[in-house]
């Protein structure tokens, strides 16, 4: 990893106007959690509903998309990545440095707010928060890696990522049962289900896949995305439209 790349990446991620979204979306979640607490009086099932539908289903992929494209996509789009690439630094190192920043940002701006939201909306002694915290962290690792890879592979990463996050994970996942097996969200939920044990069924935290399969698939997706991203960065084509 390279401290200079990490520093520039962090400045780039937080320095642009769209970094405001990184704050606005979590604040929205916390406000929603407060509203639900007020309406349901801290009932755990409402908290689960909020987390499943909004936090894990929509907010987390969106945040990871913002972060994943923010750490590398915008630099590839405007061409400024040339200043990092035209250096005697292995491209692998550049990608890892950016990915670590992305993961850290996802933890701070997405995973922690989700845990906080659960505590606000209603929890049973922190059990739900811990279980969903682990699930959100796992999902964030995979989502971020996937969206970083997507940014390196295509200049339409934001559009494709949005379609994936909104259509695949949310809409299709809701109607087509098979789709749910191929979903980062379902894989991550398997971890939450296991951690909660017997309470999982009571609270309605269920996943479509078994824990072993889920962890294997998460690892496969993450590693696959990283390998793809490194490869594509090594042969990234950088030319203006001459």
């Amino acid at each position, binding site marked *: 990893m390279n401290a200079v790349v990490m520093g*520039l990446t962090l400045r*780039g991620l937080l320095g642009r106007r769209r970094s405001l979204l990184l704050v606005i979306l979590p604040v929205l979640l916390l406000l929603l959690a407060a509203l639900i607490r007020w309406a349901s009086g801290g009932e755990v099932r409402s908290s689960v509903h909020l987390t499943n539908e909004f936090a894990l289903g929509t907010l987390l992929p969106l945040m990871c998309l913002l972060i994943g494209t923010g750490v590398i996509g915008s630099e590839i789009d405007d*061409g400024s990545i040339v*200043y990092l690439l035209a250096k005697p630094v292995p491209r692998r190192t550049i990608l890892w440095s950016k990915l670590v920043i992305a993961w850290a940002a996802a933890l701070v701006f997405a995973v922690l707010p989700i845990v906080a939201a659960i505590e606000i909306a209603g929890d049973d002694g922190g059990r739900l928060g811990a279980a969903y915290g682990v699930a959100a962290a796992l999902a964030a690792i995979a989502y971020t890696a996937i969206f970083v890879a997507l940014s390196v592979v295509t200049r339409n990463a934001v559009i494709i990522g949005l379609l994936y996050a909104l259509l695949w994970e949310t809409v299709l996942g809701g109607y087509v049962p098979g789709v749910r097996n191929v979903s980062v969200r379902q894989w991550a939920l398997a971890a939450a289900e296991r951690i909660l044990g017997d309470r999982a069924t009571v609270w309605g935290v269920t996943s479509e896949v078994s824990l072993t399969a889920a962890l294997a698939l998460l690892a496969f997706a993450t590693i696959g995305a990283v390998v793809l991203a490194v490869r594509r960065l090594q042969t990234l*084509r*950088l030319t*203006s439209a001459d």
Partner: protein
Amino acid sequence: MSTLVLDSVSRWYGNVVAANDVTMTIGPGITGLLGPNGAGKSTLIAMMGGFLAPSAGSVTLDGAPVWRHPEIYRAIGLVPETEAMYDMVTGWQFVVANARLHRLPDPEGAARAALETVEMMDAKDRDIATYSKGMKQRVKMATALVHDPSVLLLDEPFNGMDPRQRLHLMDLLRRLGEEGRTVLFSSHILEEVEEIAGTIEVLVAGRHAASGDFRRIRRLMTERPHQYTISSSDDRRLAAAIIADGSADTVDLSAGNLAVQAPDFGRFVHALPRLARDSGVRLFEVSPADESLESVFTYLVAR
């Protein structure tokens, strides 16, 4: 001293050929890569800088392949055409970051030297976002020079510069060339290239059209007379003066204005204002009729 060698390099995007079997050797000194827009200059520079794989052929720097070989960037300094930089840091921070990425022993010292070379020390503590186009160009130059590279690749470095900045950059490039560095820059403006480049490589429609000493190429080009269309207060009297002066071969008044063919561009453009003044004629418009680089290049290619 470094030499960049392109050996039968071609690059195509689908059906479009951007570079067609280009072979050239770029050695120490200043080389100008000249060609009309769309000739493939940026494609060629991207391949020289290791940002694009040749579809066929090879690009090597002192014998080592450039593609997928980040180590070459110890020797190469790159000034890209894109204007985007890391807007949220200051010029100083950005150049120091570049020096650190090169793992220089004294990044601050190298950054200071590079910023002094491009005369940007005064504005170094401002955010890059606040810089003018010319200042950005100079900071780009500083990032390329910070590790003291033996090869400098510049893609359209004069674009968007005002005349003063242009002169300054020309001086700087000239100095770098005299120090024995291999400096290559692209441009679509003949006069820029002619001004500083010892060697010119002409690229037309992806093909390597001409190469060598600019005087030789220039001579090739002037075999075709330059044509001008002039409108003035008294075309007929001006035509007589021009013919009498001998700075043009042919004058033609039949098209309603004055058309002139001059074999020697430099002589004619200097003579015309003098002739007009001496004969009391006011010039309204002087426009080159076939002076587009495109037509000159086409002519070169057709040879």
